[in-house]
């Protein structure tokens, strides 16, 4: 069992790096992690200080755990689907005399361990900052460590179980992509219903009752804890670390996690094999046979158009790539735009003076660049270019033998990312025009945002080409390695800081917009020149 778990973990993490690359990788990881840690520390200090002013500091821990718990749940759908069902190693494991519960257990442990890296940044650092600001005792940190170790168990096991049920039901469908789509959608629905049921109380609270809660010291923390029963013991552990209640709740959470783990593994072992075998079946049955070819089947195309079509097909025919590279990056800005519009409409009704004041105050360089900052945040969530080469697996090598300039292939590979980001750009420009009614600056913004978009996508592709993950085990593993949030976040924060500094120093919209555009033209020119002169070199690691 131990050997199986370690094999699964090593197999999912393995990257082919030379010693120099290993050193650079560790070095850049330390730099990026340190930078992001500082950002998280600053953000935590600001949030806790602000919550303290309203006597709601305890709510910080609750909000923190709640957010991470929800992220874990949603992320686990992709993770468990790919690790348990669409992993290439299943071809080997399923023919070995391994019990299904041992295999499930090994894969679950792999998934749980893989969450720790992110937990350190997103949970441990803010929680430690909270501990320091609130002067907590050593018990808090001991409890925190135990909680961090067991936190991913419940989300991963529950989602894996849902996925296993869906896969068991859909195993007769031979089209793997169709199965994956169905599994993702149905699992999301079931998960949404389950979470909705658990959190029912929070929806029924009235506005006046909510106001009363806010007015009570730590009322918000209590409300959150009461509303989310699955993680209530965690919240109570950390809020009552200095008395017996804390220990009692910790023990409850440990028991809850292990009981769910054992029960989940047992239930999954009953249904796992059929679903897993269904996914490695290559779908030979019920195929549509070609009877004759017509001229329409072999229509000639321009080679550039044909290459681009290949890029689009590879992205859209994989549920993981389609969701993460196209659907999500389009949905995020649209959802946020609707939220912002609703909030603004609400605010306009209650306090129109605040909105008009805000518009007046932001009609300057800072207001202009704040749209860039938001846009960059959304660009970060578009993963098309960061996997543009890796997504093709070993077949990416063939690209280099084609008589199409590598520089042209580079440009074509960033196209999807640029087009998808244009939705965000359109929303931002519309928003700017809506508030400030200035067509000139809106056009300037449109051009500059497209330049920022193009630069960012080219940069992402260079990152992918620097360490292409073409020997992946599952699409999801590759996606996770390439879209390591830390590096994306690092780039985004650096860009946002630079843009905001520019807006603050230059003050007027005219100066800011002109300088920003000039800089963006220049850096795009530089990156294009670099790609032109070094195309052989930048594709060098692809072999």
């Amino acid at each position: 069992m131990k050997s199986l778990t370690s094999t699964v973990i090593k197999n999912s993490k393995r990257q082919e790096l030379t010693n120099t690359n290993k050193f650079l990788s560790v070095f850049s990881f330390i730099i990026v992690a340190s930078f992001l840690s500082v950002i998280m520390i600053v953000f935590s200090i600001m949030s806790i200080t602000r919550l303290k002013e309203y006597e709601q500091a305890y709510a910080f821990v609750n909000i923190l755990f709640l957010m991470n718990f929800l992220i874990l749940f949603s992320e686990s759908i992709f993770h468990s689907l790919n690790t348990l069902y669409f992993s290439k190693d299943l071809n080997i494991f399923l023919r070995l005399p391994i019990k299904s519960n041992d295999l499930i257990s090994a894969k679950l442990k792999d998934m749980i361990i893989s969450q720790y890296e992110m937990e350190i940044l997103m949970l441990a650092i803010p929680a430690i900052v909270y501990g320091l600001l609130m002067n907590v005792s050593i018990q808090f940190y001991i409890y925190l460590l135990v909680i961090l170790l067991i936190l991913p168990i419940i989300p991963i096991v529950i989602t894996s179980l849902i996925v296993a049920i869906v896969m068991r039901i859909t195993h007769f469908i031979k089209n793997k992509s169709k199965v994956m789509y169905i599994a993702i959608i149905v699992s999301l629905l079931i998960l949404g219903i389950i979470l909705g049921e658990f959190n029912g109380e929070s929806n029924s609270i009235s506005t006046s009752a909510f106001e009363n809660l806010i007015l009570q010291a730590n009322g918000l923390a209590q409300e959150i804890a009461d509303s989310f029963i699955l993680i209530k013991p965690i919240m109570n552990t950390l809020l009552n670390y200095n008395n017996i209640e804390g220990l009692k709740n910790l023990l409850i959470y440990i028991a809850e996690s292990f009981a769910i783990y054992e029960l989940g593994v047992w239930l999954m072992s009953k249904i796992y094999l059929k679903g897993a075998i269904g996914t490695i079946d290559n779908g030979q049955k019920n195929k549509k046979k070609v009877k004759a070819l017509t001229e329409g089947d072999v229509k000639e195309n321009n080679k550039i158009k044909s290459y681009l079509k290949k890029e689009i097909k590879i992205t859209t025919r994989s549920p993981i790539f389609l969701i993460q590279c196209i659907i999500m990056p389009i949905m995020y800005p649209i959802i946020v735009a609707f939220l912002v519009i609703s909030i603004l409409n609400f605010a306009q009704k209650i306090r129109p003076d605040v909105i008009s004041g805000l518009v007046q105050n932001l009609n300057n360089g800072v207001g202009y660049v704040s749209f860039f900052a938001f846009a960059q945040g959304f660009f970060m969530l578009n993963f098309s270019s960061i996997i543009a080469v890796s997504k093709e697996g070993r077949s990416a090598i063939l690209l280099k033998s084609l008589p199409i300039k590598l520089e042209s292939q580079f440009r074509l590979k960033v196209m999807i990312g640029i087009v998808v980001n244009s939705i965000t750009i359109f929303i931002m420009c519309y928003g700017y025009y809506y508030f400030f009614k200035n067509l000139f600056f809106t056009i300037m913004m449109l051009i500059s945002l497209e330049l920022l978009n193009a630069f960012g996508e080219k940069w992402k592709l260079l990152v992918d080409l620097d360490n292409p993950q073409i020997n992946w085990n599952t699409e999801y593993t590759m996606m996770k390695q390439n879209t390591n949030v830390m590096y994306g976040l690092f780039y985004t924060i650096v860009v946002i800081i630079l843009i905001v500094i520019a807006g603050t120093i230059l003050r007027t919209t005219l100066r800011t917009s002109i300088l920003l555009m000039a800089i963006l033209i220049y850096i795009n020119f530089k990156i294009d020149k670099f790609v032109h002169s070094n195309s052989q070199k930048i594709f060098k690691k692809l072999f």
Partner: protein
Amino acid sequence: MIEIKNVSQSYTKNNKVIDNMNLKIEDGIVFGVIGPNGAGKTTTINMITGILGMDEGDIFIDGKSIQKNPIEAKKNFGFVPDTPEIFEKLTGLEYLNLIGDVYGVKSKERLEKIDKLSKEFGIFEDLKERIQTYSHGMKQKLLIISVLIHSPKNWILDEPLTGLDPKSSYLLKKLMREHANKGNVVFFSTHVLEVAEKICDKIAIIDKGKIIYVGTIEELKKNSKTNTSLEESFLKITDR
């Protein structure tokens, strides 16, 4: 014609995987590269096709340098890699159309060739299926067809017979011979000595990144004084 001139390549410092290689493959022959596992066969082919760069030297395909004039050089060959991993999300027909578009094959010619070759190799009925549903052999056949549809002068094939069924294997060997007889080059690697013995006009034996023999099989047998088989001569020359 393929010409390899003073080519060296190393992945790490002081460890040359290809060491000062020189080789000239004239038109009209089937040329086989044989050698033990890890000898440098695939590395050589990867360098010829532009997948891998080189530290020193240059490679010319019909006089076009793969380093200085890569696009023109690439137009002159068709390549089948050692692992048949093709764009899995495309259908077989979509892949062949992509190759047809990239090499500018007219639709009429494309239709005829795809129709004929896919029927001969036995994958016609599966052309509209996604490549991810193909078996290893079917992918290999698709890659071979993709080379044949644009009629390149030089065929570069890395272990092309691996995974093929007997009928397709026979067909490919026949096509290789016919292509060479028309004055073209068939350059391929193999570790199956019987294959090399049967179809090669000339062979090169690579070991530890160096060419240790170039010539005909008869000459090799004669030089190594073993008149029995290529296998014995090979083992003798590679000291294994």
